[in-house]
C-alpha cells in the first residue's frame, strides 16, 4: 500500500502525529503492534513537574530547563512548540473530553496514594482536585476497586495541608474484583450514577469537594462528571489509578475517532518488522496475521516508545538496541560501566537512553548528522529525558508527535503523492 506517512506506534505521540498529519491532508497509515501506552497513562499532560525541585510555572521554568538540558526532547522542539502542541491537543479533545490549564501554572493533583502531582493541562474531570486550593475533600473508595487507596490518599492530602477524609461505598457489580475499566463502564449507566449519588448524599459534609478514582464513565465521561456534580451539588474530581487507565482510554478513543474522521487508517496487531528508508521515502514491512505486507510511504514517523514499550531493548549482552530501524542510540553507558545506580531514586546511567534527534526530529548519529532524511522520531523513543522523574511524559509525547507532523506539513507534497 502506498501512503504519504506511515506512523509506527499507536501511543499518544504516534496518534497525535497521525491525526495532525491526516488533518493537514496527508494520507496516513498507523501500524502498531498493539494498543499504545495511552491505555496505561493518566493523560494529565504533565509538561515539566520537577527540575529537580517542583516546578510551579512551566512557562517560566522551561527556558532555563532547556538551557540546562541541551539534549532533552524539549531542546529539539523549542519552547514555542510545546505551547502550540498543547493548544492543538486541547482543540482535538474539544467538548468530548475537555481539558483545562496550561503552561502558566502547574496544577497539583493528588495521586491515588495522595502525593501531589504537578501537571500543566488536565482533564476538567480532574481539575477540581487541585491541591493549591484549600476546600476540604472527601475521597470515595469503591470497594470492588483495589487500586485506589482512599484512606491513605486522604491522610497524605491532609498532611499536605488540605483537610481530607475517606468514605467507602459498596457497589454491587456481582463480583469482588473489578478493575477501573469495568467500573467506568458501570458509571456510563445512569442508574449506577444515581445510586452512587444517593448513597453519598448523606455522607458528605458542607463545603467538601468529592474525589473519585478515575472511573467516572468511559464513553460519556463529561456527562457523568457533570451529572455527579449536579446531583451532589459540589465540585467532583477524578484521581487517576494504575493501569488500565480510563482517562487514557478516553483520549485514545478520541484520537482514533479524529484520525478516522480525517481519513487516516490504523492497523493494530501489525508489527513493523523491517523498514528500509531511502532518499525518496521508506519501504515498511509489517507482519499481521502471520503474513508480511509491504507499505511504501514518503515519510515514516517512529513513535514506538522506549524501554517500557519494548521498542528499545537491552540485551543480555548489555547492548541497547532500537528494534524497528536499529537507529543509533544516545546516552548508552559504555560496556562495563555502571548501568544503574544502587539507589532507586538516584539518577541512573540508563535512564536517558534513546534515539538522538536533531531539531527536525530526524535521527542522528554520534556525529550529529542525520542517518535518515525520511524518518522522524516522536515520543518516548527520543532519548535525553527522564520523564517519570521530570513529570514530562505526556508533554514530550504530545509535543514531539505534534512537532513531527509539523515537519511534514512544512515540506511540499512530493511528486510521488500526486502520482
Amino acid at each position: 500500500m502506498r501512503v504519504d506517512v506511515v506512523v509506527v506506534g499507536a501511543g499518544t505521540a504516534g496518534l497525535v502525529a497521525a491525526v495532525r498529519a491526516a488533518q493537514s491532508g496527508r494520507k496516513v497509515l498507523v501500524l502498531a503492534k498493539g494498543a499504545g501506552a495511552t491505555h496505561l497513562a493518566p493523560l494529565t499532560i504533565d509538561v515539566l513537574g520537577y527540575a529537580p525541585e517542583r516546578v510551579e510555572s512551566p512557562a517560566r521554568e522551561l527556558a532555563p530547563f532547556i538551557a540546562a538540558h541541551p539534549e532533552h526532547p524539549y531542546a529539539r522542539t523549542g519552547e514555542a512548540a510545546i505551547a502550540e502542541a498543547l493548544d492543538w491537543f486541547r482543540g482535538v479533545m474539544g467538548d468530548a473530553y475537555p481539558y483545562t490549564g496550561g503552561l502558566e501554572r502547574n496544577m497539583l493533583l493528588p495521586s491515588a496514594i495522595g502525593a501531589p502531582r504537578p501537571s500543566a493541562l488536565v482533564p476538567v474531570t480532574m481539575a477540581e482536585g487541585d491541591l493549591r486550593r484549600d476546600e476540604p475533600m472527601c475521597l470515595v473508595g469503591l470497594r470492588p476497586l483495589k487500586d485506589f487507596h482512599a484512606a491513605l490518599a486522604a491522610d497524605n492530602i491532609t498532611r499536605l495541608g488540605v483537610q481530607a477524609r475517606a468514605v467507602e461505598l459498596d457497589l454491587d457489580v456481582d463480583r469482588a474484583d473489578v478493575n477501573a475499566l469495568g467500573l467506568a463502564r458501570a458509571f456510563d449507566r445512569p442508574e449506577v450514577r444515581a445510586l452512587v449519588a444517593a448513597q453519598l448524599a448523606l455522607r458528605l459534609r458542607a463545603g467538601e469537594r468529592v474525589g473519585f478514582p478515575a472511573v467516572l464513565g468511559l464513553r460519556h465521561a463529561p456527562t457523568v462528571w457533570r451529572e455527579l456534580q449536579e446531583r451532589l451539588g459540589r465540585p467532583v474530581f477524578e484521581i487517576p489509578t494504575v493501569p488500565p487507565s480510563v482517562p487514557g482510554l478516553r483520549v485514545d478513543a478520541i484520537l482514533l475517532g479524529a484520525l478516522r474522521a480525517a481519513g487516516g487508517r490504523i492497523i493494530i496487531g501489525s508489527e513493523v518488522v523491517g523498514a528500509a528508508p531511502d532518499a525518496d521515502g521508506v519501504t515498511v514491512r509489517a507482519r499481521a496475521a502471520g503474513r508480511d505486507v509491504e507499505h511504501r510511504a514518503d515519510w515514516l514517523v517512529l513513535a514506538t516508545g522506549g524501554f517500557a514499550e519494548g521498542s528499545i531493548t537491552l540485551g543480555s549482552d548489555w547492548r541497547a538496541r532500537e528494534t524497528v530501524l536499529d537507529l543509533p542510540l544516545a546516552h548508552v553507558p559504555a560496556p562495563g560501566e555502571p548501568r544503574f545506580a544502587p539507589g532507586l531514586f538516584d539518577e541512573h546511567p540508563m535512564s536517558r537512553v534513546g534515539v538522538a534527534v536533531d531539531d527536525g526530529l530526524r535521527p542522528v548519529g554520534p556525529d550529529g548528522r542525520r542517518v535518515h532524511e525520511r524518518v522522524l522520531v516522536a515520543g518516548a523513543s527520543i532519548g535525553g529525558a527522564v520523564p517519570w522523574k521530570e513529570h514530562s511524559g505526556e508533554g514530550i509525547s504530545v509535543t514531539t508527535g505534534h512537532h513531527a507532523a509539523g515537519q511534514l506539513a512544512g515540506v511540499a507534497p512530493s511528486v510521488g503523492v500526486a502520482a
Partner: protein
Amino acid sequence: MTTLQTEVLVVGGGATGAGIAWDAALRGYDVILVDRADLAEGTSGRFHGLLHSGGRYVVKDPVAARECIAENEIVRRVAAGTVEDTGGLFVTTPDDDPEYADRFLDGCRETGVPAEEIDVAQALRDEPRLNPGIRRAIRVPDASIDVWQLVWALANGAAARGARILPYHRVVALRREGDAVTGADLRDERTGEDVRIEAGFTINASGAWAHQIAEMAGIEGVSVVPGKGIMIAMNHRLVNTVVNRCTMPADGDILVPIRTVSVIGTTDIRSAHPDDLPVTQEEVDAMLDDGDRLVPGLRESRALRVWAGVRPLFDDKKAGEGGSTRDVSRGTALLDHLERDGVHRFITITGGKLTTYRLMAEEAVDAMVEQLGHDRPCTTSTTPLPGSEDGEHMTPGARLRRRERHLLTEQLICECELIEKSTLEETMRARGTHNLDDIRRNLRLGMGPCQGGFCIPRAVGILHAMHRMDVEEANRSLRTFLEERWKGLWPILHGDQLRQARLDDWIFQGLLDVEHLPGDARRDVAAAVHTGVRPGSAEDGDLQPTPAPGSAHDSTAGPS
C-alpha cells in the same frame, strides 16, 4: 525493661535455630527463640530452595552425602507440605568430563543416594529446555523446599508447645555469671524496648554471625568465614526438575524450580563481613553464562532478581587442639563451650546446610541434654510439622486451585503469586506484623514478575485501612520496600525485566509519585503544598514562596 525467664534461649531464627526451638519444645523444654530481624531473613531465606539428595557431595564429601540423603527422606515426611517433589537430574554438559558420571554413580552406591542413569533422550523429553548436547543424565531424589514455610512451620510448631518466638529482638549482650551463660539482654528493634532473658541454657545458632554472639560470652576464636553465594531467580520454571551439572561442585551449576520461578546458583566468595554482600554486574554475567550451559537461552530469559546469601564456613582456631571441637561432619560445627572453653550452659552450632537443619538441631539439643544430665530423646524425625500432617507435598498449582474456587468472591491482591485479600489480612493478623518484607517472606508478596508493581501499593493501602500503620509509616514502608527491591533488581535488569522495571518507574514515580509523598523531613519540605503544614525551615526561601494569607484560597493565585 521486661524480664523473661526460660529454660532454653535460642539465638538465631534461621532453619537451624527454628529447628532447635521445635526440637527442644518437643522434648518438653520451655523455649525462647530470638532473631535480630525476621525469621529466615538471613542465610536461610537467601538460598536457592534445594533439598539435596546428597548427589552433589557423593564424590567430594561422602559423609555429607550420607547425611543429606538421610535427612532428605526425613524432611520429605515431617515437612511434607513445604517440599515439592521435583526430583533431580545430574547432567553431563558438553563442557564436562563424561567419566565423572562413573565416579558419581560409584559415589551414589557407596553413600546410599538413590541414582539411576537414564537415556539422554528421556531426560530431554522430561526437560525439553535442557542443553541438547548433554551426554549423560542421572536421576536422583532432589526436591525443592519453601524455606519460609519451613521455618515458620518450625516456629509455629514450637509456639504451639509454649515456645515464645521473638523476631526483631537483637542480642546486645550475653549474660555471664561466673563460668556460665545465664541469658541475654536484647533490644526490641521495633519498639526500642530493652528485654532481659534469664535462661537456663543458651544455644547460639546464629550461623555466619556465630562469632559475634560467642564473643559476647567472652569466647574467642570461634571463626566463621562468611562465604557469599549469589543466586538469580528466573521468571518461570525453565525446568520442573532440579538440574545439577555432573561435575565437582562449582559455581552456577544448580537450577532449582521453586514455586513459580527457577533459581540458578550459586557462587562461593569469601567475604569480609556477613552483612555486606554487594552483587556486581560481573558476577551476574558469570552466573548467566553458567546457567546457559545447563539451559541454552537462559541468558536471554527473563531474570527477576538477584540476591546474595552468606554461608557460615567454620574455621575454628582451636580445631586440632584435640577434643575441643566436635566436628560433626564437613561444615557443621557443634561447639560445646564447656569442653572447649570451660563455659557452662552455652553451645554454638554453625556451618552446615539447609538440608541438614534437622540433624543439626538434633545434635545441638542432644549436646544440651547431655550437659544438663537429662534423658529426653529427639522426636523430630517422626513428628510432622504443622501443615504437614497429611504428608501431602506442595504443588505449583495449589494456589491456582484455591483461586478458581474464589474467583468471583475474593479480591486478588497479587496476580503474580495469586494472593487473595483475605489471605493477606489473615497473615498480617496472625503474624502481628505490618512489615511488607515480613509479609513478602510469608506469602511471596511482590516476588513475582512485576516485583511488586501492582500488589505493593495495594498491600500498603490495606494495611493502612486496617489501621495497622499510620500514614507516615505507610509511606515509609512503601518507599523502603521499593528501595530494597531495587537492590536485587538493578544488577540483572535487561530484556523484559527492564521493560517491567520501567513500567514500575512509571507507576511508582510518574503516576503515584512515591518519591514526593510526605514522609521524612527532607521530603516534607518539598512536598508540602499548603501554608498550613509547611515545616518551618531556613531553606524555605529556596523552594516555593508561601502565598500571602488570603490568596491561598484563590485558585488563580497559587504559590508564585
